[in-house]
């Protein structure tokens, strides 16, 4: 008897899975159609001049939460130029469709991905919904959430709030430094002021991140200041920043780095000299091409080859 029941359960399970497959397939087709439709509506809503048509579109989106989410997903993928073309119409559209309300709800949702989605939307559309201090302090260490929260603050250009968050999250969230560099490079406020403030208050790690992200002529002083830091990463970031600015006057300063005890510093200097090198200093670099470390040697050789090629008779 037990065997028959088990058998029937298994047959039922098989039928259920087959049914589920068919159902998901039909649902997927519907979603695709709906996505196409909302996509068209999104483009129309940002350009439509006929009020009656526009209101009908708004009503259509407003009716279902899923349609609002779809519209948000589509707007996120829009080019920034298309979004700023008619900001008043965009604001009106977000307000009338109820998307603004939805974002506000998502910002305080318990679901990390909902929160992250709300911040992503705020950042991408540059909405004036800057997260307040209190809101930013209680964020779980979820990559997407922290990333989009910081990005939305960076877009708002608030120096102090951004620095405060950088100190809270940059060192505690175990993520590649590149993600933070990307966020800092999106900061829309005065970047030199941001770098200056980070140099005053930040740890070596924070300083390194800001130097990696901000390469400005006006910030040259900070690169020089930290060029002799004991922190290897900070020192390397400064060498790279100076080399990227490509001012031949810095050549002597970087050539000195070829004699550093750390091979990482020597390798970075040898590589960076590609931007600064004049034939005058070829001898010093030649010494590096006999360095004990293979990476210094390789970078020095590559720089030598590049400099020689630039100064070859053909180029002249």
């Amino acid at each position: 008897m037990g065997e028959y029941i088990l058998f029937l359960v298994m047959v039922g399970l098989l039928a259920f899975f087959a049914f589920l497959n068919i159902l998901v397939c039909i649902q997927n087709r519907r979603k695709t159609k709906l996505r196409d439709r909302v996509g068209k509506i999104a483009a129309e809503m940002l350009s439509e001049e006929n009020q009656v048509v526009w209101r009908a579109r708004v009503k259509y989106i407003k009716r279902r939460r899923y349609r609002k989410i779809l519209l948000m997903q589509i707007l996120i993928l829009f080019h920034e130029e298309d979004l700023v073309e008619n900001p008043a119409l965009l604001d009106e559209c977000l307000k009338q469709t109820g998307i603004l309300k939805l974002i506000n709800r998502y910002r305080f949702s318990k679901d990390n991905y909902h929160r992250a989605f709300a911040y992503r939307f705020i950042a991408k559309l540059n909405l004036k919904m800057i997260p307040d201090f209190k809101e930013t302090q209680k964020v779980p260490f979820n990559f997407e959430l922290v990333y989009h929260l910081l990005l939305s603050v960076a877009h708002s250009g608030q120096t102090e709030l951004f620095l405060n968050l950088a100190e809270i999250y940059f060192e505690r969230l175990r993520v590649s430094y590149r993600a933070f560099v990307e966020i800092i490079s999106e900061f829309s406020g005065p970047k030199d002021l941001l770098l200056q403030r980070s140099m005053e208050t930040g740890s070596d790690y924070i300083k390194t991140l800001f130097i990696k992200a901000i390469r400005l002529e006006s910030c040259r002083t900070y690169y020089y200041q930290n060029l002799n830091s004991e922190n290897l990463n900070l020192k390397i970031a400064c060498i790279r920043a100076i080399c990227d600015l490509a001012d031949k006057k810095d050549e002597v300063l970087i050539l000195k780095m070829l004699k550093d005890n750390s091979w990482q510093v020597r390798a970075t200097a040898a590589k960076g000299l590609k931007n600064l090198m004049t034939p005058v200093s070829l001898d010093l670099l030649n010494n590096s091409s006999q360095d004990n470390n293979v990476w210094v040697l390789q970078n020095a050789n590559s720089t030598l080859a590049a400099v020689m090629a630039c100064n070859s008779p053909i180029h002249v």
Partner: protein
Amino acid sequence: MVKVILAGVCNVCIFYTVSVNLFYNLQFFIAFGFILKYRKKVRVTDFERFSSSKNMIPISIIVPAYNEESTIVENIKSLLQLDYFKYEVIVVNDGSNDSTKARILSEFDLKKKEQSFYQSIPTEAVTGVYHGERFKSLVFVDKVNGGKADALNAGINLSRYPIFACIDADTILKNDSLIRLTMLFLENPDTVAVGGVVRIANGSQIKNGELIKPGLPKSKLAIFQIIEYFNAFLTGRISLSCMNSLLIISGAFGAFNKKCVIECGGYKKDTIGEDMELIVRLHKTMRVKKRKYRIQFLANPICFTQAPETVADLRKQRRRWQIGLIDSLTTHKSMLLNPKYGLAGMLSMPYFWLCEFLSPLIELFGYIIIPISYFTGSLNISHCIFFFFMTFLLGSTMSLGGILLDQLLFDNERNLKEILIYILFAVLQNFGYRQLTFLFRLEGTLRFKKFKNSWGNIKRKKFAAGFADKIQAE
């Protein structure tokens, strides 16, 4: 007495088969939970920003090529058009004796260049490194034949970036697959290796790295393999990855932290299962060094490959897979049930030994012992029928689960007709196809020593839609 022993053995066989199938079904539920969460995550991840960002981790793509003249040019073209800010494509010609080298050099206008490089991993001699003016991110490496692993090691030595991806010469990457793969290295610096889904392209139209028109292959054998791949990738690998105990990342498509791979000694040369062997060794090394690490499998960075359409080709492929598996498992047998290696040793290793390595032998034993037991009267016929149906039902449910996971992940690709055909084939694969692959695996197990170092050639065809010629020079 004999009857009792036979009945006991039969019961063990039945218990084994049912528990293996139940385990597979359990894997499905773990994968299902993961995919639901992953769908949410993918919706908020900013792939677009990072694919064009100079702050993203640059990556080297290594393509080992041996006698790939029919598909290599087209595949390199597709690799040169990926949505990624900074990457290089290193094609390593492993001493091909067809026109692979000539075709690449003429098509991409490459010239030999003196280049020094550090040999982090010893390989056969590199006879030339070629670069071109038109395609600056393309590097062609010519070397003396040493096998796929050796070619990959040479590619690692020549790569410039901290992460490398290895890709088979007969596979095509989806445009956004690189960014999806490398995001994991960005999100978690402890990531050592990441694998992606390999999908069968037979019957579908692919153009410029995008699936233009999904379709069913004409070959029934290929349809069975599609369903098998759904299970293997979306159920098996995802569930093991959730527990950080994934033991295989397909050689067709995977990305690795270069430093960690060099630390491990690179790919092992004298094996045909170099992809699995490397992953097992990475687990071992990281555990021994007590380092935090992640080896992950991601559901939607995908690449397309061609499935064998003839029984002879399928036989060669499955035999090779089985031999590679046995080689990796026996080389690292010290990990089996060893708590020092965490879940990789305590769960994945026993799983691979019991459900993959020994299963053809146990199945063979079952096929012999069950009829004997029946004819000697030690097995009840109703028991036997019940066992057969249970195995069939569990197997079919698992396959339907795989199709479901595929639909949840790639939600706008398949039409109802296709799904109905997949459902039908998921049921039919229990009658013939499974037994066929069982025979090939059995052959691999029994003739392990003979074929240990033999790859076997599988005929490749061009992909259904050629890549557009509009590819532009950088």
